[in-house]
């Protein structure tokens, strides 16, 4: 990968214009500014967003987007080395690589690999969620549409249930289009879900769960041991406030509860591009973290619920608001909870971590666990070989899978 980067740099140098003042100025600027798009390959070194998944055998899989492609690779040693990367999709310039977009990935216990991603499809910027699957890591099906609806879908999320089924959730514009036909302007989009019981070869009935979601923030999806689905997402309340909801679906996919996580009152007619995080711990404790610029509070916050979202603890501030604390990720395992987020000090992005051993009642002191200059992806937490790991893609320091020391 490093060799590839160097190769790109050499090629770029060879095509430099004559040393005019402008070119010199550009080179000077480039030295100060980590270059955008010097990278032309499809490898991890050129990736925009990388999504990890740890399979039942403890192998770390990564799906990433790079220069229009959706790529996949597998590591048997916890991310130190990856096997050959293969292209599972090629959406070209229309691949959704917005700030909150990323490919979704699950690997079933039977070894089925399923990858989903969004791509735009027309001049109205309608999108489509594409899906490709494989019985190994080498031969993928031709990508097909996840949804049978022709309107627009974005921000896919996939989760693997204990019974081996795969739950897909995404943001869907079909109700917006239908309402427009009726002369009614609906803000945002709808939340849609569908389940596959054949390893992602096909998905069953598509259900519209709720039709007032923010249209431009990723979803957070988790499944509990009882087969219920828990989704945290930015929702539009009273047609203007983009606060968060926690929705619980029963094992049959019916809405069991839909509650506002906190009354942040972020009234904004805009795309925040900043989705939440959710994790389920022991005793059905649902942990959530989110970003807001509401009238009631501003910054990144954490809360938990013991009653499927009917009530939440008071929002706990996370990180330094004056350093852009955001992009939260949560991992819960039994009573242990890890919360990671990203900050920026004007020079470097740093991933910070706080940890709880009692289901979120008490938390460790915050500590930085990784830092990099230049472009960085959102931090993501996974369990790998029984230990919490940070999965983090950085342009300057490559992809990192870092074990997180257990601190009390």
């Amino acid at each position, binding site marked *: 990968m490093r060799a590839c980067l160097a190769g790109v740099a050499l090629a770029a140098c060879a095509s430099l214009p004559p040393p005019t003042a402008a070119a010199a100025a550009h080179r000077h600027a480039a030295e100060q*500014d980590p270059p955008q798009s010097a990278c032309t390959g499809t490898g991890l070194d050129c990736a925009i967003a990388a999504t990890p998944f740890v399979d039942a055998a403890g192998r770390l899989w990564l799906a990433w987007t790079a220069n229009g492609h959706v790529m996949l690779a597998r590591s048997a040693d916890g991310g130190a080395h990856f096997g050959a990367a293969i292209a599972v999709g090629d959406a070209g310039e229309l691949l959704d690589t917005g*700030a909150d977009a990323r490919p979704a990935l699950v690997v079933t216990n039977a070894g089925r690999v399923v990858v989903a991603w969004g791509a*735009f499809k027309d001049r109205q910027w309608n999108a489509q969620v594409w899906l490709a699957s494989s019985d190994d890591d080498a031969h993928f099906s031709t990508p097909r549409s996840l949804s049978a609806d022709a309107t627009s879908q974005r921000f896919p999320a996939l989760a693997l249930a204990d019974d081996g089924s795969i739950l897909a959730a995404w943001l869907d514009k079909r109700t917006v289009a239908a309402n427009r036909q009726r002369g009614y302007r609906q803000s945002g989009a709808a939340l849609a879900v569908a389940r596959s019981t054949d390893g992602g070869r096909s998905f069953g009935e598509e259900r519209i769960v709720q039709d007032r979601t923010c249209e431009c923030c990723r979803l957070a999806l988790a499944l509990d041991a009882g087969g219920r689905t828990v989704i945290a997402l930015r929702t539009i309340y009273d047609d203007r406030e983009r606060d968060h909801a926690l929705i619980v679906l029963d094992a049959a996919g019916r809405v069991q509860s839909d509650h506002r996580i906190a009354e942040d009152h972020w009234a904004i007619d805009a795309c925040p591009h900043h989705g939440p995080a959710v994790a389920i711990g022991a005793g059905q404790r649902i942990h959530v973290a989110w*970003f807001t610029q509401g009238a009631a509070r501003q910054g990144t916050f954490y809360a938990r619920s013991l009653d499927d979202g009917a009530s939440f603890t008071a929002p706990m501030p996370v990180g330094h608001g004056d350093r852009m604390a955001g992009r939260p990720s949560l991992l819960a395992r039994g009573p242990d909870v890890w919360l990671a987020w990203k900050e920026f000090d004007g020079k470097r992005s740093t991933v910070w971590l706080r940890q709880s051993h009692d289901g979120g009642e008490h938390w460790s002191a915050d500590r930085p666990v990784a830092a990099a200059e230049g472009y960085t992806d959102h931090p993501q937490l996974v369990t790998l070989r029984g230990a919490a790991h940070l999965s983090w893609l950085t342009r300057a320091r490559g992809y990192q899978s870092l074990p997180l020391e257990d601190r009390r």
Partner: protein
Amino acid sequence: MTATRRLCCFALLAAWPLAALAASQLFTTQSYRQILARHAGRPMVLHFWSMTCEPCRTELTLLGQLHQRHPALPIVLVHIEPFPLAAQAGELRRRHLGNVEQWHVTEPFEEQLRYSVDPAWQGDIPRTLLIGAHGEVTRIQGAARDSEIESWLRSTRPD
């Protein structure tokens, strides 16, 4: 250096390494400073948008009308998602904004870029910066209203 020559210089800078692409310039962590310097001494509307953002497309239509009403008022547009330049140009042309100063990115508009504009900006768009003749900045989060911009324009004019 005349304004025209300076413009040429910047166009050259931005054209490399995207030589074959449109007149849109690559937005880096230096660009905000350059834009302010280039337009110093007169009011300017600096607008951050994306064509995948519906509130942005609505606001862009308003900016197109503003541009027609006040052709001498510089409007500078920065598209903050890495999507095809030709498509961006098409969106702008349809709204009578084809000839305004345009900037783009080739990676998501993450923290380095946002910080260079506003250390507190977490990525929400549309976002409009109304920059007065003396460099004073009025930030509008979310879709700006016509009346807001017109009222600012009246208040910031030297006359």
